[in-house]
């Protein structure tokens, strides 16, 4: 049997192709600025499922040759002496890691405007943001430089940029992909995620990097299923017959942009036509998710970022005494959003506030996770929602921190519950992409991708007709 069309297309996009596209889109004052470093000599290997295929890696994943800066001044020029497991697996599959992509500093942001090395522009509209924090990887795929890229997710940092840039972005189940080598932002929420130009390509990337790793104690000892098997199946008949798609009402509030809502309803209708049953469900604690997230994530971040002290690696400010060295290194090295979250996180963990904030937030988080479990246990296989409440906004448009946080309102729940989730294009509004989100039970990636592939096929068919 010959290889599927999507695989042929992936392989046809060579490293040389990648550089041609790169030079075109990065150039000029309105260049995308999607990459922080590149390796023009990367060729990959001759064998392996990704042999010779160019990929991009978010700059918070440790690589051996290229620097790992997390888009922060505090790590400017830092070259890691060890490699992230996810990156190693890509390389061992033959991929050519052609560069490290720009991001919000230490993965804190929803627009890629928090990078110490300049913002990333959305390839579809250079005046707009690509989303964040994995904006660079999303732009690299959306602009056609690469067809597969790694990002990271803590509150939606792969799905939201995927929605803003009109591509596919997957957040796996927490523990599905090793975090060894992923620079920690919020350890209980962080995931390595995958962008793809199509569902199949993103699925392939995920399949290669997933699996247990002895260097990550939160890595799940669960077998990785074949995630690309369903990709080639043609949508004949009713391929999703027997599946129940849940539509959580809290994700479709009256305030949701009517045009985004319309695209979602159209997608749900397509899913019905593919044989699935669509059922309204409720996740009542959804509106608590942002407050919960913005207590837990900064708290863990404040601890994870304590190691950036100039002692053993990274940038060090000059000082005659240790205390001054710490303060100058960190105040000079961290940007405003990172500083804000470190202060917030330190505050909610500090004596007198731990119970009221951190402990309480963790309890509410458990409630949120339980609600997901209950919905999935009630016979629902997959949930469908919008990915983001807006399309890509303009650079500089959103300045209030909390307003920026609300961009993650539909995505943070999956990080809090640890469930797999993904975004795929389901239409445009004023020429800007809209993303539809799928969520599945823990380790339910195979079913989620099956639904995604079918929906993608239906969307493509509709566009062509």
């Amino acid at each position, binding site marked *: 049997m010959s290889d599927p069309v999507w695989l042929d297309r992936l392989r046809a996009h060579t490293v040389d192709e990648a550089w041609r596209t790169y030079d075109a889109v990065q150039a000029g004052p309105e260049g995308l600025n999607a990459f922080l470093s590149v390796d023009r000599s990367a060729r990959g290997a001759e064998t392996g499922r990704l042999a010779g295929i160019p990929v991009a890696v978010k700059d*918070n*994943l*440790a690589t051996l040759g290229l620097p*790992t800066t*997390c888009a922060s001044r505090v*790590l400017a020029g*830092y070259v*890691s*002496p*060890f490699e*992230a497991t996810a990156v190693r697996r890509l390389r061992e599959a033959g991929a050519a890691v052609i560069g490290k992509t720009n991001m919000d500093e230490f993965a804190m942001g929803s627009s890629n405007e928090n990078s110490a090395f300049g913002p990333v522009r959305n390839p579809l509209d250079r005046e707009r943001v690509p989303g964040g924090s994995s904006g660079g990887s999303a732009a690299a795929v959306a602009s056609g430089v690469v067809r597969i890229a790694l990002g990271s997710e803590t509150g939606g940092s792969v799905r939201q940029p995927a929605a803003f840039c009109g591509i596919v972005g997957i957040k796996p189940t927490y523990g599905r992909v090793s*975090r*060894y*080598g*992923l*620079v*920690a932002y*919020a*350890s*209980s929420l962080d995931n390595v995620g995958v962008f793809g130009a199509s569902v199949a390509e993103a699925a392939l990337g995920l399949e290669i990097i997933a699996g247990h790793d*002895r*260097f*990550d*104690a*939160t890595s799940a000892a669960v077998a990785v299923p074949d995630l690309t098997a369903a990709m080639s199946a043609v949508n004949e008949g009713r391929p999703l017959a027997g599946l129940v798609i849940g539509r959580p009402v809290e994700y479709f509030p009256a305030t949701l942009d009517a045009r985004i809502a319309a695209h979602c309803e159209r997608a749900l209708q397509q899913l019905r036509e593919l044989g699935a049953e669509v059922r309204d469900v409720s996740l009542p604690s959804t509106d608590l998710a942002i407050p919960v997230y913005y207590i837990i994530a900064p*708290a*863990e971040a*404040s*601890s994870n*970022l*304590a*190691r950036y*002290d100039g*002692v*053993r*690696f990274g940038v060090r400010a000059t000082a*005659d005494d*240790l205390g001054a060295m*710490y303060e100058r290194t960190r105040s000079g090295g961290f940007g405003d959003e990172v500083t804000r979250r470190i202060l917030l996180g*330190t505050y909610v*963990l*500090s*004596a007198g506030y*731990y119970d009221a904030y*951190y402990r309480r937030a963790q309890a509410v988080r458990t409630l949120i996770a339980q609600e997901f479990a209950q919905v999935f246990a009630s016979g629902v296989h997959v949930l469908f929602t919008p990915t983001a409440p807006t399309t890509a906004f303009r650079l500089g448009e959103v300045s209030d921190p909390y307003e920026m946080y609300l961009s993650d309102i539909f995505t943070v729940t999956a990080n809090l519950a640890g469930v797999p989730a993904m975004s795929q294009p389901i239409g445009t509004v004023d020429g800007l992409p809209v993303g539809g989100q799928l969520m599945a039970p823990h380790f339910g990636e195979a079913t989620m991708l099956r639904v995604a592939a079918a929906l993608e096929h239906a969307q493509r068919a509709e566009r062509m007709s």
Partner: protein
Amino acid sequence: MTTETITHGWELVIGLEVHCQLKTRSKIFCGCATSFGDAPNANTCPVCLGLPGALPVLNAHAVELATRASLALGCTVHDTSIFARKNYFYPDLPKGYQISQFDRPLATAGAIAVGVQPDGTPRVIRVHRVHMEEDAGKSVHDRFADMSAIDLNRAGTPLVEIVSEPDIRSAAEAGAYARRMKQMLEYADVSDANMEEGSLRVDVNISIRRHGDAALGTKTEIKNLNSFSAIERAVEIEFVRQCRVLTEGGVVEQQTMLYDDKRNEVRPARSKEGSHDYRYFPDPDLPPLRLSASFVAQQAEALPELPPARRSRMLVQYGLPENDVEQLLATRELADRFEAVASASGDAKRAANWMLGPLLASVNASGLALSAHPVSVARLAALIRLEVAGEVSNTAARQLFTMLEQQDGEPLELARAAGLLQVRDDGALVGWIDEVLAENPAEAARFLGGEQKLQGVLVGLVMKKSKGSADPKKVNQLLAARAG
């Protein structure tokens, strides 16, 4: 004012915090070696260096040893315990936090006996908790001008922290607790437990109150104690200081103090910048540690014989006085060696005497470790067997011991070559007796006539003639037989 006057009426309340390094091959959260004395930072990796992206993974053997330590101290080992981050900044703390345990420790509620009360019941100090944590690295401040040098070889070494209840009431008791704790940990084979080498570290929390008061006074913490006697000295000094402060109407400030061994002083540590808020929270990189009942039972099975049980058994098995047994139990190595010598020689009493006397004296004088001492188990046992068999006299045995310290070779051969073997051959003895009687006719006649008290003199003369090699027992027998 004398010390007695100042401290009169004040009760001393002490708790000890012991940090003990577990003797695993590798560190608690990574596979780096825990070995001692290697080049600075030779035993490091991304994890114990705290590099971006590194993650901790718990060492199974550290869990086993920590569980055994907890069981040896009579604690309840919990089926679920949680690792927590203790956040603070210091250059030898790579991640900017220490992974420890906070409100869900490995074990709680144990105790250790430190002696006997006047009424004969055991004096028991309770152990509040045992928890696991990682050690920090080392800072060296005097090697380079104006800079501190950081060595992270020690960072990540597995520790158990053992916290006592504030049950201790005197400096001597504090020293006794520390000694018993070391002994217990060493016997449990979980640690080298050596204060001088740093595998056992002791901090003292000390406060005072009026006798009869239930409330605890403000405590100070004393660190940098490098020996058991330092503990006792530091406690005495701080007790007097606190009594003086309160007696004069002042207030004891909560602070950390350091003991200066050279000057025998207890001084406030200067690096305190306000109180620490460690902002403990459960470490999200480590799921809860869950231990099954069968795992805990296995660790109990794996425990070697601990001092209380060993004490009872040795008292019964060897019939030695309590004081001897206590001394032999001082270290597990000594106790093991004693039992080996007792078994190989067949004479526990002699084995005890030789080991507690000449051998320990020799070990102390030579500066060698017991295991490296030339008078090995086999050779000492052989010497004792010669003694028991009457092949050498007590005096000759002492000479032989000295020879064993200085030379190789089997005791029998050395004794023979040096003419130390007792002569018990009747022929030779009779010969010497005849000579002595002949040379001392007056005494001979009186002895043979019935003056028994002359026997000792005559035996002495025979011993002299034989240059000490005659077996005095046999000589006595033969002379007595002559007298009829």
